[in-house]
């Protein structure tokens, strides 16, 4: 499995309230989440997420268990997220909804072209590559299926 996209760089400790605030959760209309994603961090980010790979500092997705956070990112067009570490509930949620994550420490700039190659176990940015921490076999299968729901339905 391989993903690519343009980099959007974010700091460490991005919490789920920053990704999608609690005031927007009570709805089944997912477009509410994609419209307000990252609003409290920087309202300008949402429009740039289509085709993006987020490159963040450590502990991305800390805070609540709200699955609306990875759903908002995926449905806003984010292709994957690279960070040195993720909060564990966010990590599981993202895999479960088919949003690829890669644990790696890589420096790049906004707009850089990035590639994550899970088979090679590497992330590539202009002029550099870094190893990614391997995902478990099960997580890779869930991601390859597009999330736990399609994975489950295949069984």
């Amino acid at each position, binding site marked *: 499995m391989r993903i690519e996209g343009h980099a959007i760089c974010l700091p460490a*400790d991005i*919490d789920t*309230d*920053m990704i999608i*605030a*609690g*005031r927007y*959760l*009570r*709805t*089944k209309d997912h477009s509410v989440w994609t419209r307000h994603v990252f609003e*409290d961090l920087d309202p300008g980010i949402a429009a740039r997420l289509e085709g993006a790979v987020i490159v963040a500092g*450590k*502990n991305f997705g*800390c*805070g*609540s*268990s*709200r*699955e*609306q956070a*990875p759903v908002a990112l995926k449905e806003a067009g984010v292709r994957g997220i690279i960070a040195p*570490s*993720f*909060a*564990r*509930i966010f990590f*599981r*949620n993202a895999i*479960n*909804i088919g949003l690829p994550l890669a644990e790696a420490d890589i420096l790049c700039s906004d707009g850089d072209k990035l590639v994550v190659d899970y088979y090679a176990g590497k992330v590539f940015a202009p002029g550099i590559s870094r190893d990614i921490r391997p995902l*478990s076999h*099960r997580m890779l299968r869930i991601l390859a299926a597009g*999330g*736990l*729901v399609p994975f*489950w*339905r295949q069984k």
Partner: protein
Amino acid sequence: MPSLSELILSGIAGDYVDRPVDRAYVHDGTGVLTLETWRALGTGEIAAPSRLYVLFDHIIPANNSTTADLQHELRDFAVSSGLHLSDSGGGICHQLMAEGVALPGEVIAGADSHTCTLGAFGAFATGVGATDMAAIFASGMTWFRIPETIGIFLSGNLCGGAEAKDLALAYVARLGMDGGTYHALEFVGEGVSSLSMDSRLTICNLSVETGAKAGMFYADSVTREYLGSFGHEIKVQNSLDPTYPQEYSFDLEDIEPVIAVPPRVDTIRPVHELEGISLDQVFVGTCTNGRYEDLSRFAAIVRGKKVKVRTIIGPASREILLLAARTGVLPDLLAAGCTILPPGCGPCLGAHMGVIGEGEVCLSTSNRNFRNRMGVGGEIYLSSVATAAASALRGEISMPGGAT
């Protein structure tokens, strides 16, 4: 020797295991997406409804027709599928599970990050998202990577106006917001025996603020007595003295009243350094500090006096509110000028009642002070109950009585 997580999950740290879930629960905030995802799984099956709980606590009673419709659907599903249901006003999900439901040695999954609270009983309790929970609904099972364990050694007794919340903020600050990521925390040492069940629940509640998967105490005589009051006879769990890859030590005598300053839970300052900061609201409640001991302690400090700032009290459950009414705590709170909410947790996440406005400052006994969490442009300081009470009386951050 195995850690408590390894004993309960029957494996070794690093193993991926599939395990039956003894109890699983959602609230009104996460239940809707869980239900939607469960339907998408397409099996139409609920594996073990008697182990599943739907507990309304985030926006209760419903604040508008959208919320009411979502809750209506979730309520109907719970009833028609035979799940346990606690409707609006019953209390906060973690507290309801702590009132004689969660037991030592159980594997518990909750669709809320603060499910780790229940580790106070010697259970392996952890938060999951909606999709994991939907799969638990359908199969009764989930997978875990058995975590490595960080040992947190406690000695001595709390004193000088400090309480369990101050210890909790102190260890979050020591570990940092990701110091426990992918790990379980075990609270051990001779200092544990002096901590009440309510205190242990507060301490475990904040473990996720370090990123930890679980925060746990071994069930002991305190646990046995507490659960005995609910009619359970439990066996104590003895530590096998595991070798922890990481250890931290806290002498409870050294714990002082502290406050986590916005916008991070791991950035603490002694209360005396922040004295005089003007407050617009004090909020006492949540799954962290809305229990009877908390309300009672607050009432003892404000009894016969008047609060000088908007003060909101959210009892964590109906049983707690009822007990507070019976013992005179509730009249004391009302006479002091406090506003009492129905048992729930809406203000903590800025979802329902107690929302703060731009530029407003709230001192809260909750567990998160992230930017804009209780309201756009507002700031949240986190403290113990005693600090909140002393501060409510002066309308500004103040040292709790008894502090030196």
